[in-house]
């Protein structure tokens, strides 16, 4: 069917090279975080987009990864790689235990179970203060070192590179899975589970495998996060984050890895972008606004403060608009849009030519 496509990888590496050399440190920091989310959503894309199993609890796996490694390395002096292995193993084991009863069944029982599970993890992190630090979180996790260099040094420019190389490797891996036998099995499950079963695909085993894989990837991302920031808080397990992970895959066009990648980067940068465009001061506003509204500076300041809270609202709106107008995802959606645009332009030109001739 479709073979390995190197072009997106080439574009990605050129982009990364450019950012590595010319990017501002702040941009790189934001993109490093986005890259960690990408690792989560690549796994989610396999699970939600290809196998059609919705999970609304992946932030919990992300948090399990981060907290496990943080607690082990800080409290028990376990080396980093030990923290990594335990984090991923614990997350996979938990996913396995949840997956066994729920993935036997057809339908979206996984969504319901993971929703409950995610909130349980959040409330456990929040309430077992002596173990997880409660709402103040855990800080002081050792930074990630590779070949004797601290990756988080120099504003984390090497961390940026490291995370994104990881993303590329996972993209490669996920692409290979999709093009191979298991990938076709996953898609057949999404298409029609009974038919897949009848065709000899052990559907529950495949669903379980991809769920455990995606949970492990989320835990790995959590590990990367905690040894970058040094800090992890209960908000990393929030229901909202799990929901946003699903939204990222959906906006990316479900069964579309590169679309998911783009959507993840866009949606993780969006809140920051919205916050920044709203940082307008009352004095920056043109005079006619002051005069026509007849408001004092403090009143206008309050008004602006109100509008700065719009970011949540716009975030929700963007998700709705994407799903209504581009249900096939940003990648295919934008391509389709250009195609229709080109067709319209051609049609208009054609008409003009006809009218010129007559």
């Amino acid at each position, binding site marked *: 069917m479709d073979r390995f496509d190197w072009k997106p990888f080439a574009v990605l590496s050129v982009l990364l090279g450019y950012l590595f050399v010319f990017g501002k440190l702040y941009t790189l920091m934001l993109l490093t975080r986005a890259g960690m989310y990408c690792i989560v959503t690549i796994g989610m894309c396999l699970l*939600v987009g290809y196998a059609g199993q*919705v999970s609304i609890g992946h932030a919990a796996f992300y948090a399990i990864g981060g907290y496990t490694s943080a607690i082990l390395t800080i409290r028990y002096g376990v080396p980093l790689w030990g923290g990594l292995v335990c984090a991923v193993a614990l997350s996979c084991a938990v996913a396995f235990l*949840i997956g066994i*009863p*729920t993935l036997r*069944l*057809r*339908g*979206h*029982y996984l*969504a*319901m*179970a993971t*929703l*409950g*599970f995610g*909130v*349980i993890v959040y*409330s*456990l992190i929040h*309430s077992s203060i002596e173990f997880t630090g409660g709402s103040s979180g855990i800080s002081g996790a050792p930074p990630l070192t590779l070949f004797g260099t601290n990756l988080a040094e120099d504003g984390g420019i090497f961390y940026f590179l490291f995370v994104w190389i990881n993303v590329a490797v996972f993209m490669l891996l996920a692409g290979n899975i999709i093009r191979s036998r298991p990938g076709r099995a996953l898609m057949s499950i999404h298409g029609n589970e009974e038919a897949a079963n009848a065709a000899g695909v052990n559907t529950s085993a495949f669903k379980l495998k991809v769920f455990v894989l995606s949970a492990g990837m989320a835990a790995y991302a959590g590990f990367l996060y905690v040894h970058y920031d040094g800090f992890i808080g209960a908000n990393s397990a929030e*229901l*909202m984050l799990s*929901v946003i992970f*699903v*939204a990222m895959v*959906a*906006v990316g066009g*479900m069964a579309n890895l590169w679309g998911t990648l783009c959507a993840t980067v866009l949606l993780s940068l969006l809140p920051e972008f919205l916050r920044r465009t709203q940082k307008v001061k009352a004095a920056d506003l043109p005079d006619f606004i002051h005069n026509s509204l007849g408001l004092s500076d403090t009143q206008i300041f309050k008004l602006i403060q*109100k509008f700065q*809270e*719009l*970011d*949540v*609202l*716009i*975030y*929700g*709106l*963007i*998700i*709705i608009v994407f*799903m*209504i107008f581009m*249900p096939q995802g940003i990648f295919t959606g934008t391509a389709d849009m250009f195609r229709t645009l080109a067709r319209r332009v051609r049609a208009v030109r054609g008409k003009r030519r006809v009218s010129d001739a007559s």
Partner: protein
Amino acid sequence: MSLLSQIIQFTFSGLANGGTYILVALGLNIIYNATGIINFAQGEFAVFGSFIMITLCMAWGIPAPVAFPITVLALAGIGALFHRTAIAPLKKPSVITMVIITIGGSIFMRGVAMLIWGKYPQRLDPFIDAPPIRFMDAIIKWDTLLVLVIVALVVAALYWFFEKTVTGKAMRACAENREAALLMGINVDRIVLLSFALSAALGAVAGVVYTPGASMEYGRGPYFGLRGFEVAIIGGLGNSVGAVLAGILIGLFETFSAGFLSPTYKEAITLALLLLVLFVKPSGILGKAEVARLKDF
């Protein structure tokens, strides 16, 4: 306080909470039956209902018996608007697309609530301002009893609506089999619109009965949504009788576990019940496995 009066106290507050959850769960069930999706904005309907009630009663001084129907109607309008602007324009509606839209809708409504009513909790005066009933050391507020009466009335009214009226029967027919309903001349699109309006109105009632004596803040939506969701699943998705039973069960379980086991881990313990039911009997306490197999979600 003796053990018996503690039990009485917990029973009443548990039933009152359970009543709220039942209303949210019934709203979820109605939309689920009409469209096959879980509406993630259901909790936000409750938050909006509560805030509109607070504005009407506290800021504008409208008496509660008048403000209550206005709030419910307003939410019915919001529900219908939500369907018309966000769900209806979909060209090829799939379950997952609609679910993501309701997620976007819940985020959007949370933003709107924060913008209009601010970030701080707001309170609502009790409906009945009389000294509470004392019964064997247990203190039962009049509002708690009022909540129970309202929930019982709403459930009874819904039962009558679905069993006796033509529209209600049409809605049940759609839940049973959309294509067949369409062939029998039922306007399915209008039924879906009605479902959203009705379910938002139920959300409003849930929000309103929850608030007096307590407070409401903009971020409460997911809490209502989650509890309603848990009740709906334990009762068997789409099964209204199951939702009523499960609501009572969860309400009582929540208050009793907080009172006797651990208030800190109340949330985790209550949700563990959800996982238990999903693992042991995934179709819910009253759900039938055969019915569950036919559903998309």
